[in-house]
């Protein structure tokens, strides 16, 4: 005799209440951040002094690409940071958040 309710078996999501979504998003953003991180650091390194003109010139010059990449940098960083911190908190406090 099973102690599981039929409803539980039908929804089939177990005790975690979610599937591989977080795991998968974390891998995808990680791969994106590898490329974006290297791009960003390479850009920093190629600046000849971080004067305002240099920094703005770097971030504004190839208008479409730099702005698009920056937006993605922000987005990818935020998503990965939030998911990562949640994962650490979950381990630290044993919360199924």
């Amino acid at each position, binding site marked *: 005799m099973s102690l599981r309710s039929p409803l539980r078996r039908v929804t089939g999501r177990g005790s975690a209440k979610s599937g591989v979504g977080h795991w998968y998003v974390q891998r995808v953003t990680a791969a994106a951040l590898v490329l974006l991180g290297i791009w960003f650091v390479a850009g920093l390194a190629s600046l000849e002094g971080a004067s*305002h003109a240099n920094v703005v010139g770097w971030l504004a010059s190839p208008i479409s690409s730099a702005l698009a990449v920056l937006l993605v940098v922000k987005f990818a*960083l935020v998503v990965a940071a939030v998911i990562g911190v949640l994962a650490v908190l979950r381990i630290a406090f044993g919360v199924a958040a």
Partner: protein
Amino acid sequence: MAQRARPLSPFMHYRWQYTNTLSILHRITGVLLSFGFFLLVYWLAAAAAGPARYQSAVGILGSLPVQLMLFGAAISFCYHLLNGVRHLFFDLGHGFETRTARKSGWAVAIGALVLGLLLWMVLRAGLGGAP
């Protein structure tokens, strides 16, 4: 009535190994980087706000406490980047043999220190040379 002992998480009773340290460092550097992210946003916002605001931001970023934070962020960034690639290979099913995992672990640790110091010097030179 005797209470049965609850099962423990593996890290509670396995012998501590070098690779355990690498694993927990990945999480710690990740948490540090999510705070370091605020410095990056601050820097970008200051650059967008114009030369005067940027100049005062560079003053703050060049102060000793923030320099220490940037040093930690540089090392953390390089460690998290290199070890993250190592973990992506794990996720694809490569490099699980004990010898390989240890070797890649040493490469990541040493590489992170070397690259982190280089990145730190680049950041310092850039901020110091800002007129």
